[in-house]
């Protein structure tokens, strides 16, 4: 094994060395967590504005509308609406979910769970966060430039995103911001991959790693391979906009050769489809672990879960064409992509069945992290099933670009990943900050979010099936959509419920971090992975003495244990069940 022990450096003392130029993976994780929560807030408010415009067209947005759009008396104007859905998607994907799941929990969990003192390259880790801040700054600047922010959707399809569709500099800022963020994430990915390969504690084989680490590691591999593809697409888009190249200009074929907007779609989705799995794999990993921990049972078929996540990682690179069935791909290609897409159902079904197998006959504890993990099982199930309709060419031709798509990808990418993030925050809170979040408010937070979230996204499936297209400023100018006003109003009220519920979480979180009671038990959830063998919050350089791993991460509920506990630490010799 390629193991080596890292040196212990002295603890940083000044504020700047501790919180701004920190090499410590735990501090960088916390920085990413705050960054991501801010992103969630911003993206969430934008979502509410979008929903408001759809449910109450022509009415002023409450509270902040008057200040933001004084020229229309508080009503969201059409061009702003396009900017809102663009920035909502961009912020939620790249500046909220990515930093929380991959930035925060990737940084925090990987070294702790594999028994390392820090990442393999701490300096690069710090630079990765600084670049992420730079990228966020560019994105925020883009909101205030003349002619406004990017407005071509988070997919930035040409010709919407070329100078013809978006003459302002906002779109250029958007592309540069995404490019910089891509560099930041790639640096993180290089770190994660190397750390997992070289710094696992002695005795820890790949299948002794918790599934969380598996998920994060596979995500890092996809990130390292596919973010540069988006980078290339973004660069060419910037060249088109700034230097007048003609890669994506529609009509260029007629005048000067073969410029083609569809090429961007290919490049975007070669990245974009793995990106879906980049976001969901860490959540899958965490949920697989948490379901086992709170069912007090070994994870059913943990090895099969890890392997099916790996096969999904590989398959995810071969299916991007299912986003482009309506771009006149040849039927040979669409059918190939459809078949490959359907193949993903097999490994997905395997680990989904494993989740259910883990729960089966477990003595389940319904703590908040467990509730959120069960929430992931539910919403991801729905998201996965609705995906079948979109992966099939015949049904996709009808459903393409409708709210059915919006509902589907929110169930998979937003709902599952958001629930996964919350599960992780509630679960690792004691190890991160040494405080517990309030359980009662946590449960209220879960149930109200679950209610609101399903109201929103299930409603979207209905209106999409009824033919309502996405990205329309006022769909009800079309007669055939007018009967959908009530259900749109219902979706918006659900969204408002979900939005307001997050205030509970923010108050709970901020209160716990700054004024919460210290959690004295280093292992409040009674689980055996390595991070729970050390005090809370995790000390500088984590492990005084690097642990030696002797068994897997899910050794729970073994009746032959004589220690008086129902679980065993990974550092203990395996007791046969």
């Amino acid at each position, binding site marked *: 094994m390629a193991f080596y022990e890292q040196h212990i450096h002295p603890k940083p003392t000044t504020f700047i060395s501790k919180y701004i130029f920190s090499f410590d993976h735990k501090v960088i994780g916390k920085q990413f967590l705050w960054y991501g929560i801010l992103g969630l807030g911003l993206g969430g408010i934008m979502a509410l504005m979008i929903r408001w415009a759809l449910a109450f067209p022509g009415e002023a947005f409450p509270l902040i509308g008057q200040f933001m759009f004084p020229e229309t008396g508080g009503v969201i104007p059409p061009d702003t609406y396009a900017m809102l859905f663009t920035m909502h998607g961009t912020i939620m994907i790249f500046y909220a979910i990515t930093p929380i799941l991959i930035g925060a929990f990737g940084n925090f969990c990987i070294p702790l769970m594999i028994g390392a003192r820090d990442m393999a390259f701490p300096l690069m880790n710090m630079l990765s966060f600084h670049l992420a801040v730079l990228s966020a700054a560019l994105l925020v600047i883009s909101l205030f430039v003349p002619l406004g922010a990017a407005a071509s959707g988070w997919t930035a399809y040409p010709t919407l995103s070329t100078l013809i569709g978006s003459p302002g500099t906002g779109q250029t800022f958007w592309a540069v911001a995404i490019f910089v963020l891509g560099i930041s994430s790639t640096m993180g*990915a290089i770190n994660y991959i190397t750390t997992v*390969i070289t710094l696992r504690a002695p005795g820890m084989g790949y299948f002794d790693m918790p599934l969380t680490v598996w998920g994060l590691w596979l995500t890092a591999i996809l990130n390292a*391979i596919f973010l540069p593809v988006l980078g*290339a697409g973004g*660069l060419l888009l910037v*060249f088109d906009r700034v*230097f007048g*190249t003609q890669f994506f200009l529609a009509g260029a074929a007629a005048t000067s*050769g073969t410029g083609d907007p569809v*090429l961007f779609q290919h490049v975007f989705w070669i990245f974009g489809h793995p990106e879906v799995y980049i976001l969901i794999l860490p959540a899958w990993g965490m949920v697989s672990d948490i379901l086992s921990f709170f069912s007090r049972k070994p994870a059913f078929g943990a090895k099969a879960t890890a392997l099916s996540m790996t096969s999904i990682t590989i398959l995810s690179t071969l299916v991007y064409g299912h986003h482009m069935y309506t771009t006149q791909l040849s039927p040979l290609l669409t059918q190939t992509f459809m078949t490959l897409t359907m193949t993903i159902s097999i490994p997905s079904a395997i680990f989904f069945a494993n989740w259910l197998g883990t729960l089966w006959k477990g003595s389940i504890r319904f703590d908040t992290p467990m509730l959120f993990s069960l929430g992931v099982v539910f919403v991801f199930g729905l998201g996965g099933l609705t995906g079948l309709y979109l992966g099939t060419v015949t049904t996709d031709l009808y459903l393409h670009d409708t709210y059915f798509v919006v509902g589907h990808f929110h169930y998979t990418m937003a709902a599952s990943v958001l629930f996964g993030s919350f599960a992780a925050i509630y679960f690792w809170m004691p190890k991160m900050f040494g405080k517990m979040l309030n359980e009662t408010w946590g449960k209220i937070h879960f149930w109200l979010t679950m209610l609101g979230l399903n109201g929103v996204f299930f409603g979207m499936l209905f209106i999409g099936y009824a033919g309502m297209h996405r990205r329309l400023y006022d769909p009800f100018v079309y007669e055939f959509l007018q009967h959908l006003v009530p259900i749109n109003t219902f979706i918006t009220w659900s969204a408002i419920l979900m939005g307001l519920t997050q205030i509970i979480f923010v108050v709970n979180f901020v209160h716990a971090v700054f004024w919460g009671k210290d959690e004295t038990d280093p292992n409040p959830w009674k689980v055996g992975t390595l991070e729970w063998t050390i005090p809370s919050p995790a000390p500088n350089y984590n492990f005084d003495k690097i642990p030696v791993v002797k068994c897997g991460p899910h050794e729970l509920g073994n009746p032959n244990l004589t220690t008086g506990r129902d679980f065993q630490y990974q550092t203990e010799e395996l007791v046969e069940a």
Partner: protein
Amino acid sequence: MSRVATLDSAELEGRRLASSIAMTVVLVSFSMLFASLFLGYAYYRITSPVWPPMGMSKVDLYFPTLSTFAILLSSLSFVIFKTKYLGGGSAKKTLPWLGLTIFLGLGFMFTQFSLWADLSGKGFYASSGVFQSLVYAFTWIHAAHIVMAILALVWLVPTTLKNECTITEENKVNNIGKFWHFLGVIWLLMYFIIFVI
């Protein structure tokens, strides 16, 4: 060679391995960036009935060929530098070869600027059509990486002068070398795919 003795062999091996794994991932990432560009090129080329499209003439091979020689010789010179440096050679023996590498790298940039000046002198602009866009975008992106790599080579000068080769210096020289050779290989691909055929 002073610090090497104080590190135990596991840490030495571990740091060497970590550095090599990380550099492999870095090169995979950069390969994907250039692979996407080549994909774009293939897409345009395959969908166009004639190439270059719309009666455009091909680029004159004079400057690209000079660039090719410059970058190949610089890679060769770096190999000699690396062999001497890791073999424990003194700064007096190694520095000229590093200097030659940097000089040839700058020579490559000079031929690139000459190429761009030559092309725009002939009315061949990035905005003239997609073939021109491709030539410029490829060379711009590659040249930007070359500039970064030359800065990294210059960063090796104080390392060489220090005359002490621990695992840190060894990894640095190896990784910068890999990146430099990588850019050479990319240039060769570009030379044949965009300029020659």
